[in-house]
């Protein structure tokens, strides 16, 4: 038996999936399809970022570093070593996970702004290495001629095919994240977010939770990076700047940290926004800055939280407010 809220949710999920599947048929130009592809890659990137900032509320700002590792692993392994894109993606995920493990061991004891600064350093290190280790990465010229992605041995030459690959990976990523959130690891990450002292006092090894969530976030970031490399056929260090980190942060905060729909929604909206009005990058950085400010101050749970709140309000019979069941108070 499905409760009304479950029906509503699965109905919404089916509608969103149907829309996502039909989207390439509705766009008229290759350019518009390119924006759609970028939105999906961004969504996967932000979804990974959600494991740390959304689940454990640890503001780890090295996420673009993992994205870059995934992109460069795919770029270099396929162009220099003739690896298949799938193998290259898997290797990128492994390298990014190993890097996350090291970052985690070094930063698990840090809190608040110390953690943020240290992990910010990691992102900068990756970009600096990509720029200056010219023998390996080609320096600021980047890597050209990265082959198109493959699936089941088929080269996905058409952008539509690449779009569906990205959509499949995003759907799998979202499903896995939803599953994790509802199991023990998800509950323990939520416990860590709300009181690390209490979590420790119950015997939860919070260091392991921090490490696992960072590794998961790095793995998602690397998959997004690999998709990025194979989709565009070109990577260069200036793609992995702090400006992108700021954009990803804004996407998560606008969408709703800790939810599953929020990061995807935020990524899609903030990918499309700059396309609607073509002005300089600096202008958009300014807009992201203002958005971050406004959301953090007045809508800390993001658009997804706002939607939950609206649903809860609509469902509450008038004049009843004494007892507060879970859904309402969570959306507060």
């Amino acid at each position: 038996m499905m409760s009304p809220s479950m029906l509503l949710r699965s109905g919404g999920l089916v509608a969103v999936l149907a829309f996502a599947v039909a989207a390439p048929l509705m766009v008229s130009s290759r350019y518009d399809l390119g924006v759609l592809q970028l939105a999906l890659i961004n969504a996967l990137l932000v979804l990974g970022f959600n494991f740390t900032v959304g689940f454990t509320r640890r503001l780890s700002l090295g996420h673009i570093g993992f994205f870059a590792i995934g992109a460069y692993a795919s770029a270099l392994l396929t162009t220099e070593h003739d690896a298949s894109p799938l193998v290259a993606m898997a290797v990128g995920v492994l390298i990014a996970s190993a890097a996350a493990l090291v970052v985690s061991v070094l930063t698990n004891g840090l809190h608040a702004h110390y953690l943020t600064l240290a992990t910010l350093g990691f992102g900068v290190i990756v970009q600096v290495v990509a720029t200056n280790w010219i023998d390996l990465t080609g320096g600021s010229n980047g890597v050209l001629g990265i082959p198109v992605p493959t699936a089941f041995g088929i080269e996905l030459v058409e952008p539509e095919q690449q779009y569906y690959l990205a959509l499949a990976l995003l759907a799998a990523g979202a499903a896995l994240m939803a599953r994790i959130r509802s199991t023990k690891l998800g509950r323990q990450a939520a416990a860590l977010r709300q009181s690390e002292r209490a979590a420790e006092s119950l015997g939860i090894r919070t260091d392991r939770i921090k490490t696992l969530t960072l590794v998961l976030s790095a793995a998602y970031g690397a998959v997004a990076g690999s998709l990025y490399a194979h989709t565009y056929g070109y990577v260069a260090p200036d793609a992995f700047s702090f400006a992108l980190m700021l954009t990803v942060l804004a996407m998560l905060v606008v969408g709703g940290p800790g939810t599953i729909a929020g990061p995807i929604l935020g990524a899609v909206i903030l990918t499309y926004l700059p396309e609607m009005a073509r002005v300089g990058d600096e202008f958009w950085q300014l807009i992201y800055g203002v958005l971050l400010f406004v959301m953090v101050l007045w809508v800390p749970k993001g658009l997804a939280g706002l939607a939950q709140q609206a649903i809860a309000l609509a469902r509450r019979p008038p004049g009843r407010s004494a007892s507060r069941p879970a859904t309402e108070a969570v959306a507060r």
Partner: protein
Amino acid sequence: MTAPALETRGLTLRYGGVTALESVDLVVRPHTIHALIGPNGAGKTSFINVCSGSASATAGTVSVGGRTRRARRPSDVARCGLARTFQNLQLFAEATVLENVLIGAEAQNGVGPLASLLGTPRARRSGRAAREAALAAIEFVGLAAERDHVAGALPYGKQRLLEIARALATDPAVVLLDEPGAGFNPQEKQELADLVRAIRDRGAAVLLVEHDMPLVMGVADRISVLNFGTLIAEGTPTEVANDPAVVDAYLGTDATEGLAS
């Protein structure tokens, strides 16, 4: 003879030039309510922090359930069988009552993240067992009616009870209650005393750190008195109440009157 639920030997804690604890030897026997009292600044909080692993002792050892441990992290201590509550509440405020206690109940059940993710038969069994243990603990402290309420929205007194339920759900050998009666009215304190006795009768030892003298005198099997980081007395409530050193150094006239009532 059974091992003590909690035992400290020569426990000493210094920060810089300040000595917070000086060679404290304390034994909490199983099935005992053991109260730790002392004026403000006597070292009660330091004692709790060292026992629960949030501070490292300068010297001395702590053993829980007969196991001496190297203090590394609070989670290691918890896994030896020590559970605690906090003077300043540390609830998972956005989670429901049931979720709070469930997190405690499953924390030490040995199910790994992957097993939990895949939903292996063992993970499912352990999950059901944790849920039952959580429901039992909620029932035990009397929060069954609030099971699905959000923790942060509960009245203060019920939040305190929820912390106790969450600690009990880990099935501890010893429960450390840090000022559980703070902010309670006399009626609630009476109910708290009954609950503390029920915890003991259920099988766990209790280390009760509490300011309220009538509550302590009424419920404790044994009392240890800390003053300036040193244990100055230990015994039954009657022995401690009649100990001239305690009366002179600590309890004072007001509290002695409190005892007589």
